[in-house]
């Protein structure tokens, strides 16, 4: 990699990171696993003057039981998330989606916080955060605040965080007992990004869907909640037929892009087909 020159700091505390960012101003960038940032540096599409590496900050790493919530530190790697028994117990959807992220090498370096902060609409985890009602914990020079996932993703590669703020972790409510989950990812090769992804959560009662949550990956500049399909699914029987019928509305709120990998109309079609499959899989598992 031959990036443009930059300075590098590796604080050992969150306070140190916030201070380093404040000092460097708007030309500073946080470095987590580097799996999205380094490609940009390599192609000289990003020219930060200072990189503040979060890798030395122990408090940002790990998964913890936190009363009614599960706390997942921003610098926890995909690999650690995937192998956390707490994650599997309280929000299996996250584990399932994380298992589809890239390849083992990337999962050992890339972090959950980096994935969310990068806000790539093709990333698999933002839609999951949306479905799980995760709260994003952010620290900055003005203190600490928390944002709902629904308010966090603002635009393409853009979050509601201000310059100088650090995502410290996310809090996932432990309300998912009795729900079934599925993440249906449609990618062209095993290691490539999602053309479309569907995160589904289904709560069943008496042989029918009591409640459904649907989040869409790469169906717009930000992850999309498919609320029309969610409402249509509520009350539907668990057979493939009714779930598919509900999924016909999966793209109602989406504004999918056209790019090298798919035109918008095909993405809409995929979202409907994959949502039907994701709901059926979530209902049965």
């Amino acid at each position: 990699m031959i990036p443009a020159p930059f300075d590098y700091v590796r604080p050992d505390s969150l306070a140190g990171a916030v201070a380093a960012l404040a000092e460097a101003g708007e030309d500073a960038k946080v470095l987590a696993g580097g799996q999205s940032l380094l490609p940009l540096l390599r192609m000289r599409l990003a020219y930060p003057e200072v990189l503040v590496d979060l890798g030395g900050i122990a408090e940002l790493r790990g998964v913890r039981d936190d009363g009614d919530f599960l706390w997942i530190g921003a610098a926890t790697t995909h690999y650690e998330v995937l192998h956390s028994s707490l994650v599997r117990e309280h929000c299996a959807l996250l584990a399932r989606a994380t298992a589809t992220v890239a390849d083992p090498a990337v999962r050992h370096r890339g972090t959950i916080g980096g994935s969310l902060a990068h806000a790539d609409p093709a990333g698999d985890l933002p839609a999951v955060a949306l479905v799980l009602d995760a709260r994003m914990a952010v620290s900055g020079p003005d203190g600490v605040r928390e944002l709902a996932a629904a308010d966090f993703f603002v635009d393409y590669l853009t979050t509601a965080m201000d310059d100088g703020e650090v995502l410290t972790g996310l809090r996932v409510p432990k309300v998912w007992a009795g729900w079934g989950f599925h993440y249906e990812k449609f990618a062209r090769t095993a290691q490539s990004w999602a053309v479309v992804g569907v995160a589904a959560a289904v709560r069943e009662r008496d042989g029918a869907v009591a409640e459904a949550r649907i989040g869409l990956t790469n169906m717009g500049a930000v992850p999309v909640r498919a609320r029309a399909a969610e409402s249509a699914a509520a009350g539907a029987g668990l057979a493939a037929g009714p779930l598919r019928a509900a999924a016909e509305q999966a793209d109602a709120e989406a504004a999918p892009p056209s790019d090298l990998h798919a035109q918008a109309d095909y993405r809409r079609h995929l979202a409907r087909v994959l949502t039907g499959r994701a709901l059926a899989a979530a209902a049965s598992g």
Partner: protein
Amino acid sequence: MTATPDAAERVPEIGRARRRKEDARLLTGRTRWTDNLDPAGVLHVAFVRSPLAHGAIRSVDVSGALARPGVVAAFSGADLAAEQGSLPCAWPVTADIVLPDHPPMAVEEVRYVGEAVACVVARDRYAAADALEAVEVDYEPLPAVVDMAAALAEGAPLVHADKGTNRSFVWPFESGDIAAAVDGAEVVLRRRYRQQRLIPAAMEPRAVVCAPEGEGFTLWSSTQVPHILRVMLAMVTGIPEHLIRVVAPDVGGGFGSKLQVTAEEVLALLLARRLDRPVKWTESRTEGFQTTHHGRDQVQDVTIAADRDGRLRGLKVDLLADMGAYLMLITPGIPILGAFMFPGIYKMDAYAFSCTGVFTTKVPTDAYRGAGRPEATFAIERIMDELAAELGMDPLELRRRNWIRHEEFPYTGVGGLTYDSGDYERATARAVELFGYEELRAEQARRREAGDPVQLGIGISTYTEMCGLAPSRVLGELSYAAGGWEHASVRMLPTGKVEVVTGSTPHGQGHATAWSQIVADRLGVPFEDVRVLSGDTQVGPRGMDTYGSRSLVVGGTAVVRACERVVDKARRLAAHLLEADVGDVEFTDGAFAVRGTPEPSVGIQAVALAAFAAHDLPEGVEPSLDSDAAFDPDNFSFPHGTHLCAVEVDTETGRVSVRSYVAVDDVGKVVNPLIVEGQVHGGLAQGIAQALYEEAVHDAEGNLLTSTMADYLLPSSADLPDFVTDRTETPATGNPLGAKGVGEAGTIASTPAVVNAVVDALRPYGVADVEMPCKPERVWRALWDAAARNGGAR
């Protein structure tokens, strides 16, 4: 206790599945790639590259870069115009070919995105890259010419204005009366197939280091062709050939992309001379995607004529072949290598071919694994399936009715080639058995019947290909500038060990292992006692290098010949030592003895020592036991085989998954089954990749949109099925090893097998073709379009 085998039980090395000698070293990093070489004082080169597909260069100002820290020099194309020459094309296929100048750095005009316009030389790679932005280039944009049809249209903008045309050449071939064959046929099918542009993506990027040494220069390059490169560097730069040494250290793959004389290699030599310092350049992956030559890129209009009973009458092929902006080393020859292969394994009355080479404002095309033959095989194997569908015949049966039967070999086909040996019946029977053809057809029928959203498709490819490049005489007839022979030296050292120098330079094929096996058998020495040297024009000045599945067939034969000469010489000396007549001395398992009386005997190692000491040599025998040989084949070699592919197509999403794949190849006699297996697996992966994944995409302005691995999709093992492979063995007759070459066969065979399977799955829906790569969206649209044609929504 293990018994020591006596000499009589010696296991032949040829045929043994030896693990490759080179792998432990390569896999543990105990090797040096070109980029690992850092001669003292080396300077690093970075290139300013054109952001435009076509533009006139108004001015280049490098002064800003010169002011940057660490920068030692910077040059524009104009600065080097007097010495940089023109990159060579060694294969001007017609007498009137339009062959434009190709300066290594553009001087007046840029003609593809990524073409070098200036360079910066600095003390480290970072400083060189940082200074690029300080070079100011002023371009006047000119219209891009991206599409071949548009390039040939009346009034199209010209890639080379001074040439007055975008047509580089038209190369025709005709055999038999094609008009009569087509007019007289009961069925005539016309199809257009597109061979998308592919990007060779060798694991090791291109890299070059050049150092002034003594009165000359040593140039290390990640190249397939150090020998050809040396000649060409001398011809392009005027630096005398004997002052240039070219070394290909370990090279991590090429697939044809390093069968080239590149701008960066020429410039490295010129910069080392100008600056009197070693210089180095290594491409980034994106730079490689944009500037290393691409492969394929043809539009094929194919007409096939047959009778209702399936008998083929004639085949007519009209190609447009995208040359890109310039003709590089063998750019125009690539489609011509395919010209003879369109008839495949079939008998027919007439064949007509023409190829039009077209200039566009894209990076030039050139050799890519298979080079012309995959394109040809695809066309014939695809249209055979279409013909079978038209005739309502099983596609295997149609092939059986037309292929050359095993008793008919040697057979001179309508393409003019004489196929020396083969047995298509046997390979097909074996493939059908391994695949479970009938069972899969039954499952297919069930799924069709049930309207299963996941349909099953079965694809066939009964291929042959011409390789073992190549008889020099034929190359000459085809206007290629060089020959196709190969050279080897075999030296027995005084202590009985053996050094083999091969002119065929490996870049991952395993020559060190295979050549050791050959020599061990021929000289009767242990496998471990043989060392293979290659890739350095100072160690082995003669050679034609590695491409076209030629190494074993041509280079291996040269090794056999050199071994024979060593044995002949040793026999004379042994006879002298045994006080016997040469005619009475036999050579078995490394020892000479008088016929009928096994003792006394003298080992070849002892003979080598005697030849070294030279105390008592017979009349006319010179000291030292070694020999050279060059081999020039009389004919190509013709591997063949039958590949069967089953795919599942999800009709709701368009996704294609390869469910099973059977490859039965006949590559003649096998020296090392493990190496053959590796070549087949890699070849299949690359061929399947063309069918399903890979495609270089340009926008209307000529920008490459697929310039990273996130956008240019290379499949990994996770995307491929477990391959079922087997072999039949019909020895080649043109070389003493009986070998046919296997480097490209898998790639050539597999692409049509996969696409045939995809179309087979979808035929009941009214789909007759899917353009490559058969990506989900394309499959889905093909279904959608077919449904619309059939008057109903799906």
